[in-house]
């Protein structure tokens, strides 16, 4: 199938649409003109850089390169999870819980998909490995960030309830059980909604991108289904792991609620 190449002029035309929002924002005093322009600029620069990096990596297929890029993606995603929490765990835990959970879930699911399901040669073929890991990390990051934010926020607000349950002789896990379940559900709702609405309300971005780039629609759909399942699994395991580890950290060895382990 023929791929229509986009020129810088085509992209500039699309950018004009974003610029058209600026006078509207100023007129309605929405105060989003500046963040909108900065975000648009960041999108352009970041994606162009990624494009260049991927071009280089695709040209030199080497496990070390893939590993380095994956590690960088993981660290950036971990930082993002931490930054999105209003009351995060203090110290290394704030970064470590989210990052480690993402590492275990996203990397494990990506490896499984690469080696068992897709089977490219070599298995770390960047054309498959990097987009897969990127989509998994991005979605797992969202799920974990939502779940951890809810966990820490609810623990802070429901201190009396948690301690009330401890006072009645419940163990820490039961005392924070309701909050933990709510947090896990909160982290999983976006992917459940995305799966439920896929194809009816929205055409997923990856599938649309593949079709635009010339792939047969049925192939694009199959990849999209695969990605949805992988994202659901990665987000599910990552969220459950992060929330469990985060809630464990909120108690000490005497099962006291330690809100002093959260940043105020």
């Amino acid at each position, binding site marked *: 199938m023929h791929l229509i190449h986009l020129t810088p002029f085509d992209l500039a035309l699309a950018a004009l649409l974003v610029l058209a929002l600026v006078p509207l924002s100023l007129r309605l005093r929405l105060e989003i003109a500046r963040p909108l322009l900065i975000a648009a600029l960041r999108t352009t620069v970041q994606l162009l850089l990624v494009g260049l990096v991927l071009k280089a990596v695709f040209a030199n297929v080497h496990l070390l390169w893939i590993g380095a890029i994956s590690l960088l993606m993981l660290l950036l995603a971990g930082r993002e999870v931490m930054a999105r929490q209003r009351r995060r765990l203090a110290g290394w835990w704030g970064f470590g819980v989210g990052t480690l959970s993402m590492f275990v879930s996203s990397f494990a699911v990506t490896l499984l998909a690469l080696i068992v399901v897709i089977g490219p040669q070599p298995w770390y073929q960047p054309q498959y490995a990097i987009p897969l890991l990127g989509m998994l990390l991005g979605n797992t990051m969202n799920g974990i960030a939502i779940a951890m934010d809810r966990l820490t926020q609810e623990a802070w607000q429901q201190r009396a*309830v948690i301690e009330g349950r401890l*006072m009645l*002789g419940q163990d820490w896990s039961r005392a924070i059980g*309701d909050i933990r379940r709510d947090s896990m559900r909160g982290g999983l709702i976006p992917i459940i909604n995305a799966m439920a609405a896929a194809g009816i309300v929205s055409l997923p971005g990856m599938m649309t991108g593949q079709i635009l780039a010339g792939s047969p629609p049925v192939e694009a759909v199959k990849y999209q289904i695969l990605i949805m399942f992988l994202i659901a699994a990665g987000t599910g395991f990552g969220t459950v792991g992060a929330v469990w580890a985060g809630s464990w950290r909120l108690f000490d060895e005497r099962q006291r*609620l330690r809100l002093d382990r959260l940043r105020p």
Partner: protein
Amino acid sequence: MNLDLGPGECVGVSGPSGAGKTLLLRAIADLDPHEGEVLLDGVPARRVPPAQWRRRVGLLPAESAWWGERVRDHFRDDPAPGLGRLGLPPAALDWEVRRLSTGERQRLALLRLLENRPQVLLLDEPTANLDAAGRERVEALIAEYRGECAAGVIWVAHDAAQLARVATRRFRFEDGRLVAAADPAAPCT
């Protein structure tokens, strides 16, 4: 501070707000980290699993917490006899928690705590939101429980007259220290 509590004994503690009364109870219940040592029957708290410790050393906070929708969701067994003793009808078990008055919450929280049959009761202003009749009922129920289970009680209250009625010994927080109150020989009900 050094405080001994015998079986069936009731120690009253008073003092100005912010003096550390609640902190003392929380430390004994092992809810806050502390540097002191608390022993029950000669065994330090740190040697007892935390959940088990808090079932044996029960703390009734000044403001109780509720998590289920109905009162019944917070009880393991049927507390019907206790409900009557505290002036509450059996139907109270089906009441929605969000509709409970502060006084009803306080009385129900006491019943909920007694379900564990704690060996030590730590009471933080247990009758602060009750009228005279409610106060009498709570005092009578706790006195009966003390007698029946030989439970030791630490009763924190601002009401000196109440402590004189219920406590076998009384202390006051003064400048961060626990000192014997003026009339240690107050009768115990």
